[in-house]
């Protein structure tokens, strides 16, 4: 079949059932992305004869004799960017960039009418990172990026280093590599919520042409591990096998088929015959804790499960003061139960990995390379080596650009089976999750049930707060205990209250496992705490923000959770009062937003939250900066870039310390070859931990370069200063290129390392406020105004940090208003597609005004604090509080979908039935 792609002629025959997306990628056009493979997300948008289409739905054979344009062909041939590409670069209308090609190709196809109605024009394009404001600015030609200037980088809107690659479709994500002789892996998954595998017959699967291997529990190591990745593996229970002879949820791996093509592997999966002995199952965590419930993990102490017989994987019990006495002293009490649902991360790039060999693996220098969509390359290497008894030098783990994470990739969900297949076949192997697999074969946010009782005195002071928390960790305990513990920390500690108590349980059920998710348990508990704070204030007839102001901890106060005080956690800077003030100012301002429609109810509500700027127990980063022959610098960091923007910040830090411009700093990253260790890009540590290591390495190199320059020229060290591309010594300019040569002649390398262990830690603060209008006739909630205050310390890059906040608010709005991974009575996921699991679209997402507090942290690098997970946390309660204010009805269960809101209003007599 002949066709023209980006002006080049091709003559290749597609398969009969092939879609244009995979056909184009097979021709090497990796700019065409797979977000959903079902027509919902638009990441694969291309033009066919000038018309935009979703190439995942377009039969490849229909492209015969047609002209196809992908993002790689968008720019005119003269080397300039297309105006749309320039717009996305100038506004930095992307974060991870995985959806960007689709947005570019769609935007380029809009006529004036469509451009005037972007909510409708972008119906078929999903972005999970940005919250769409930056995309709107990109389309409208608003420029945010600044030009680099020597030494002045912190606090400036310098662009992401990968921007030019992102907008031209040349950034290389996990699967954007061509590997010779690649085999494809597909997974057969359990149809039962709990079953023992009596027998597996792989004969018919192995007979499928192209099938190279079928792996079952007989092939898997006996060793138990956790898919969760933490610096200290003992934080998670060892309850998982690569392939197990017991399956514990619908969707769990049963077997893996490795074949020459995905189609053959799929056919192999259909032909594996499994004899299951079905076992009793339980999907409700309260039922799972009752005597007589099926025991999901009958394992010994070595698995580190708190109470296996009761299905409790982790628990926490703590009390400071005496909560019962506190209730007795209270003038008002409020008691309520809150529920949060299962939510999926929905990063646009799915999970997956490609493994191949460098050299002969059995030779001393041969090794295995694993390219993975991961937030934790170093921890994944460590886990793989432990699992398969390999020395670390035999395994290299690399992340390309990662297409979104949100915590979902702080897991080893695919690398273990890919490596098993590669070791078995001694061939390169790829596993790329489908979008449905993301829903039933990966992880979700932990659903929480939180029973709160709180009391306050008439003068508006909190007296006592008690919570019983049950989190549903699903069939495996990855992150279960840690998420529960984190949920019970800063949520309590942000308020001064003499009596606090918690009983928390992370519980196994026969459902898809939960895992790490942006906010890591805090958002769930903050939903309950901030809803109750709002109710208490109403009972006291106090303005809820005034009530909060009276009870928040002060800058010099201890942060006390029911479990006590965390020794390495400090208030390194304090912007909480300012966050509260930002909200109070917004409330006081006259409405300048959208006017509510007639008959709608209007209200406003707020919430605040605190988060530690890193996980407890240490978080390690190494960085290395090396002067290059051309006089530039190379910065190596371990941490991954998945749209969080830390690469931009690292480069800014290095450029600032070295007195140069960001474009003279090149970066190598997320590769176990480049530095000694890096715990990973999670726990909001990219700026404060890896950034601090970068700062230290850069400072050390600057000192080294100055020492060497002084020595080289025979002048006083004090007379020397770093400049853009030179060292200036007593008025004389020595180019860095020359210094590099001089050092090389002297057999010296001008390089320096930096290290940070992630402790001590500070805290960051956020507050969110909404004004909403609610239609009692339909249950629709319209956000009239959204204001967010963020205390990120010294904001390293306001444009990017604003994007993090906007994206966090948008993602949280999804979890507040629509998103829910629904499971049926057997725990099977029924919402395994974007058309069934509604992500916020351009049309759904309001603009949020972002205000940063003028703080500077004593602990974080150059005064910076984290601002990646935390904007998510106050959003749900702020919206529920606004809804309460508008309607008088307290909603305690998420999501607040129109149908449920309408039913709630009807049941309380606020809405009338037609």
């Amino acid at each position, binding site marked *: 079949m002949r066709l023209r792609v980006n002006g080049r002629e091709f003559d290749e025959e597609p*398969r*009969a*059932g*092939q*879609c244009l997306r*995979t056909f184009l990628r097979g021709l090497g056009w990796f700019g065409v992305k797979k977000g959903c*493979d*079902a*027509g*919902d997300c*638009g990441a694969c*948008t291309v033009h066919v004869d000038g*018309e*935009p*289409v*979703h190439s*995942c*739905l*377009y*039969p490849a*054979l*229909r492209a015969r004799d047609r002209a196809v344009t992908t993002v790689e062909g968008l720019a005119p041939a003269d080397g300039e960017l297309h105006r749309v590409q320039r717009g996305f670069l100038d506004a930095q209308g992307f974060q991870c960039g995985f959806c960007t090609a689709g947005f570019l190709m*769609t935007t380029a*196809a809009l006529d004036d009418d*469509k451009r005037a109605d972007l*909510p*409708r*024009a*972008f*119906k*078929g*394009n999903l972005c999970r990172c940005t919250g769409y404001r930056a995309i709107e600015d990109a389309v409208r030609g608003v420029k945010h990026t600044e030009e680099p200037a020597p030494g002045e980088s912190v606090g400036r809107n310098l662009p992401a280093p990968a921007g030019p690659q992102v907008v031209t479709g040349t950034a290389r994500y996990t699967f954007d590599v061509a590997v010779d002789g690649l085999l494809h892996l597909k997974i057969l998954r359990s149809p039962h919520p709990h079953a023992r595998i009596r027998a597996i017959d792989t004969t018919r699967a192995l007979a499928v042409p192209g099938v190279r291997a079928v792996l079952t529990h007989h092939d898997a190591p006996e060793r138990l591990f956790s898919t969760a990745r933490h610096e200290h593996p003992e934080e998670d229970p060892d309850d998982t096998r690569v392939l197990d002879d017991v399956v514990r949820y619908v969707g769990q791996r049963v077997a893996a088929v490795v074949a020459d*093509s995905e*189609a*053959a592997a*799929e*056919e192999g999966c259909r032909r594996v015959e499994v004899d299951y002995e079905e076992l009793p199952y339980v999907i409700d965590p309260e039922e799972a804790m009752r005597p007589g419930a099926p025991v999901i993990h009958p394992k010994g102490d070595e698995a580190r499960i708190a109470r296996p017989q009761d299905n409790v994987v982790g628990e926490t019990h703590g009390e400071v003061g005496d909560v019962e006495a506190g209730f007795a002293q209270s003038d008002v009490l409020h008691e309520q139960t809150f529920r949060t649902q299962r939510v999926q991360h929905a990063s646009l790039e799915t999970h997956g990995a490609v493994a191949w060999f460098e050299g002969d693996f059995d030779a001393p220098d041969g090794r295995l390379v694993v390219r993975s969509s991961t937030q934790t390359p170093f921890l994944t290497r460590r886990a793989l080596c432990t699992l398969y008894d390999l020395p670390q030098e035999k395994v290299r783990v690399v992340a390309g650009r990662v297409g979104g994470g949100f915590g979902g990739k702080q897991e080893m969900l695919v690398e273990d089976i890919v490596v098993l297949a590669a070791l078995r076949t001694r061939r390169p192997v790829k596993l790329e999750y*489908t979008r449905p697999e993301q829903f039933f074969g990966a992880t979700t946010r932990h659903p929480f049930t939180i029973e709160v009782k709180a009391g306050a005195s008439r003068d508006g002071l909190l007296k006592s707060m008690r919570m019983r928390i049950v989190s549903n960790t699903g069939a495996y305990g990855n992150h279960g205990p840690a998420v529960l513990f984190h949920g019970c920390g800063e949520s309590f500690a942000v308020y001064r209250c003499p009596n606090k108590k918690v009983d928390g349980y992370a519980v196994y059920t026969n459902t898809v496992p939960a895992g790490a998710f942006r906010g890591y348990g805090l958002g769930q508990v903050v939903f309950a705490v901030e809803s109750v704070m709002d109710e208490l204030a109403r009972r006291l007839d106090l303005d809820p923000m005034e009530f909060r102001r009276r009870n928040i901890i002060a800058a010099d106060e201890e942060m006390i959770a029911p479990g006590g005080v965390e020794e390495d956690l400090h208030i390194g800077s304090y912007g909480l009062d300012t966050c509260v003030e930002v909200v109070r100012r917004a409330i006081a301002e006259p409405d300048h937003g959208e006017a509510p429609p007639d008959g709608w109810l209007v209200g406003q509500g707020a919430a605040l939250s605190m988060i530690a700027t890193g996980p407890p127990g240490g978080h390690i980063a190494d960085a290395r900066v090396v002067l290059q022959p051309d006089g530039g610098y190379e910065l190596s960091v371990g941490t991954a870039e998945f749209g969080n923007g830390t690469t931009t910040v690292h480069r800014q830090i290095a450029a600032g310390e070295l007195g140069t411009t960001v474009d003279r700093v090149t970066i190598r990253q997320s590769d176990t070859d480049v530095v000694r260790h890096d715990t990973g890009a999670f726990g909001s540590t990219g700026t404060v931990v890896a950034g601090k290591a970068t700062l230290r390495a850069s400072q050390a190199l600057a000192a080294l370069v100055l020492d060497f320059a002084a020595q080289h020229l025979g002048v006083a060290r004090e007379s020397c200063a770093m400049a853009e591309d030179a060292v200036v010594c007593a008025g004389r300019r020595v180019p860095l290129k020359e210094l590099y040569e001089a050092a090389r002649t002297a057999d010296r390398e001008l390089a320096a390392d930096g290290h940070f262990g992630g402790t001590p830690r500070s805290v960051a603060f956020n507050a969110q406020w909404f004004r909403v209008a609610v239609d009692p*006739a*339909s*249950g629709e909630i319209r956000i009239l105004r959204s204001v967010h205050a963020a205390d990120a310390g010294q904001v390293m890059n306001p444009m990017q940090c604003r994007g993090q906040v906007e994206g966090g608010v948008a993602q949280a709005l999804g979890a507040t208003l*629509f998103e829910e991974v*629904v499971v049926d009575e057997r725990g099977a996921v*029924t*919402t395994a*597609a974007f*058309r*069934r699991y*509604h992500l916020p*679209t351009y*049309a*759904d997402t309001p603009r949020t005004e972002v205000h940063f507090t003028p703080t500077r942290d004593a602990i974080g690098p150059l005064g910076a604090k984290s601002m990646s997970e935390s904007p998510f946390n106050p959003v749900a309660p702020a919206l529920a509080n606004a809804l309460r204010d508008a309607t008088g009805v307290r909603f305690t269960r998420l999501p607040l*979908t*129109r*149908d*449920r809101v*309408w*039913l709630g209003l009807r049941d309380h007599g606020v809405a009338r*039935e*037609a």
Partner: protein
Amino acid sequence: MDLGTVTQMRDARRREQWRPGDAYLGGGTYLFSEPQPHIRRLVDLGSMGWEPLEVTPDGLVIAATCTVAQLNRFTAPPGWQACHPLIEQCCRSFLASFKIWNMATVGGNICNALPAGPMISLTAALEGEATLLALDGGVRRLPVAEFVTGNGRKVLREGELLRSVTLPTYALRSRTAFRQGSLHRLGRSAALVIGRHDPADGSFTLTVTASTPRPVRLWFPLPPAAAQLRAALEQAVPPGAWFDDIYGLPEWRRHLTLRFAEEIRAELTTAPVAPGEE
């Protein structure tokens, strides 16, 4: 997505024996959006060359292969007031974007027989008659509202093909009113209700889709009173018969439908606003 089990694509113009595992390929926007492990061969309607939209003395003939984009661009002859804005309103009720409209076909949407299929809403409301071609060349015709029999269910027999839908002139000359409700802004329909007032005979027809598993049609010789319409609707859709899926709870869908029905009745029983007066 790739359909791994499909090993052949044949042009539907070539007369070949229909086999188990054959499936007609219209725009592909549904077929390629979900795994189809039962399909072995695609019978491609892409080269049939059927005129997408034909204005005839009987009305408008929409070929099954007419794309949503082509339908949306249709300019109606004078007097066919039902076409605008109803066609666009229905096209816009697709969850899918305008890019999908370039590929998706009217016939494909109807044959999917989903409660929220907006081409079903449109053609059922405008008295559309489906023309079906059997493998043996036999032709049968039936109303679109009867073509769809339930959620994803339709009367098509093995190998039978939806050729076209004809919207009769009298329906196209009617006044229409449209309401759609969804869980999300610009989202998939939870209730889609269309009213049609025929100026020729004064009759009033209400077509309910999305909130019921299949189209529900109510015909009145004259516009009904509010209570009469409501009673007829509640009789046609008893409690428990409202559609229940993740796009909306049945009670809420019932409420929206009753509300929309009354709004439509009120709209169509007031005198139309002449062009220029708005």
